[in-house]
């Protein structure tokens, strides 16, 4: 258990002109026992960051501290960190027991009986006791995953690093393991850094999520904060499924204009955006009201005529693709029990209290949705 600090961590591959900046000045402070999810599209530097923490990649610049101690120069073996890999990385010629004992044999001075006791205890925790004498080749994907976890847990390290550990599992097993991993982490109370490209995993598992793009840290926040108060357009678009709708607009006298599409702003939002010339309007699909039947938050000049182009029924909700008469295409989600046919004309409300406005150049959030009516306690957001 430990506090893990990443202080201006930078990674550059190669030297001179041909070098590639993979991780750019990342600062994260991970509290003891915290579950931090590092999320971003592929190639964003999240795995590289994790590998620097593990000691598998050198750190070009900055410092990584574990419990206040500088880790940069220490090899992976000296850091007392365990890692779970996407490929599980089990030793194929060893039984499950030998796999789990390997780390204990190499990094501790425990006696044979103590090691076996630790392995048995961990195996029981993960419910893999009956697999102990089998070799990895004889296990299913889910079982291998548990063994890989067990190999990390049995060493009782200061921190767990997980590199997309669930991405090789099928969807059903993945959601089951997601819950189990959360419980396990809560029980063990060990600092954990979890890398994924899957925003659902990020949202559901982490105490906090750190969103990376092109090597740069975009935001570190609780999942709900990242969802409702994204720091910029990238975070807003990355978190949430289906993605937030974006409409590029010009600001003209407290009105957002995109061709014939005109969206008048009230004083509060208008004040936030009046310094900018080009902005992007953002609205989550679930905040759009279709035909006003979902709620009457949108009135008069925030209501627009639209045609339904495609309906994707998901069961619990319908994803409705809309084409506004005045221009932009939007995606809305409505209750799964509502019947909406493609081709019908509807009225779409864009409630002003749910809109986000981002700067057109930098993408930074100028205004985030109001949460006045939300039942969120401040500690979580």
């Amino acid at each position: 258990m430990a506090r893990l600090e990443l202080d201006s961590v930078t990674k550059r591959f190669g030297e001179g002109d041909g070098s590639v900046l993979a991780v750019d000045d990342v600062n994260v402070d991970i509290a003891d026992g915290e579950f931090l999810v590092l999320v971003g599209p592929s190639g964003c530097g999240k795995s590289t960051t994790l590998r620097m923490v593990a000691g598998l990649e050198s750190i070009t610049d900055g410092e990584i501290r574990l419990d206040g101690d500088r880790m940069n120069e220490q090899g992976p073996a000296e850091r007392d960190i365990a890692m779970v890999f996407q490929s599980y990385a089990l030793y194929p010629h060893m039984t499950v027991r030998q796999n789990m004992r390997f780390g204990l044999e190499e990094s501790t001075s425990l006696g044979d009986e103590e090691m076996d006791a630790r392995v048995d205890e961990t195996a029981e925790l993960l419910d893999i006791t009956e697999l102990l004498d089998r070799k990895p080749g004889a296990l299913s994907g889910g079982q291998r995953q548990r063994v890989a976890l067990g190999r990390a847990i049995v060493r009782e390290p200061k921190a767990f690093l997980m590199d997309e550990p669930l991405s090789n599992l099928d969807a059903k097993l993945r959601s089951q393991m997601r819950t189990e991993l959360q419980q396990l982490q809560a029980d063990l109370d060990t600092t954990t850094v979890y890398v994924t490209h899957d925003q659902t995993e990020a949202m559901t598992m982490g105490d906090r999520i750190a969103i990376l793009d092109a090597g740069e840290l975009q935001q570190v926040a609780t999942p709900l904060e990242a969802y409702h108060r994204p720091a910029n357009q990238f975070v807003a678009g990355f978190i949430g499924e289906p993605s937030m709708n974006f409409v590029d607009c010009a600001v003209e006298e407290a009105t957002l204009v995109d061709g014939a599409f005109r969206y008048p702003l009230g004083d509060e939002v208008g004040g936030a955006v009046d310094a900018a010339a080009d902005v992007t309007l953002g609205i989550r699909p679930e905040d759009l009201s279709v035909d006003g039947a979902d709620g009457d938050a949108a009135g008069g000049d925030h209501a627009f005529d639209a045609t339904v182009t495609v309906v994707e029924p998901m069961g619990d909700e319908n994803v409705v693709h809309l084409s506004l008469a005045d221009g932009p295409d939007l995606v809305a989600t409505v209750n799964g029990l509502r019947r909406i046919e493609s081709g019908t004309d509807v009225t779409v409300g864009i409630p002003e209290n749910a809109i986000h406005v981002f700067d057109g150049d930098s993408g930074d959030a100028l205004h985030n949705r109001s949460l006045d009516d939300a039942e969120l306690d401040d500690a979580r957001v």
Partner: protein
Amino acid sequence: MSAADRLQTTVAGLDRTRIALYAVLLAMVAFYLAPLESGFMTAFKTPDGFRTTTPFAPPPLGEFTVSAWGTAFERLSTGLLNSALMAVPATVLSALFGSLAAYGLTNLSWRGQLGVLVLFVAGVFIPYQAVLVPLTQFWSFVDLGGRIPLEIVSANEGLINLSITHVAYGIPICTVLFRSYYATIDDEMLEAARLDGASAATIYRRIILPLSIPIFAVTLIYQFTQIWNDLLFAIVLVSNPSNQVVTVALNQLQGSFVQQFNLQMAGAFVAALPTLVVYVLFGEQFAKGVAGDS
């Protein structure tokens, strides 16, 4: 489908192209096996027998004998022993060093490793003839027998020189063979081992080595055959007759006045037998030793 039906289908399938194909295949089998068969038959014939019959015919009545085998074995026995003393350590060491070098060049990362790898690959292509003179000069300079005043060294100096030479010249090809295998080993697994606290040496001993059994079998078969069958280095480097290896001894079964074909043929089979034995032994190991087999 019954056996009769199957046979009928098979026969029906024998159209003209197929028959021609089998005929060609059979002819090729006969062509390639003829020398072996002739040698085997000749080895069982008396001198009169091999003079009066064609080589591939079986020995005629009264001309059958196994005496050539006895003589061949007797005259090659020292050579067999010397060859074994020389080839077994040379094979094992070149495979082991090749494996270590391949591990260092493939699974560890350090500055300048590509340059070193290029040297290893270049080593594969060195023609033996090109190094004969420097090699003899090198060994006469080293002068093992003179430097290490031990009876066992001076008595076997030729064999030791030969063995070390084969190890040195075997390492490049062994390294290349092991490298292609080690390149397929999961990097994440080795990283997991590093995080588990294992040093580079421990990873080699506890993970790489146990997973290398199949490629060790391949390399051991290949190297043993190469080293056992080598004649060039043996002629050049071994001058002491008591250190003569089997290939040189076999060469001397050729009589100077009378050609004793039966003896030469029997000798050739005796000399080739160990490579066959090794092939059978490790061939099985190769089939069995697939990694992750449970």
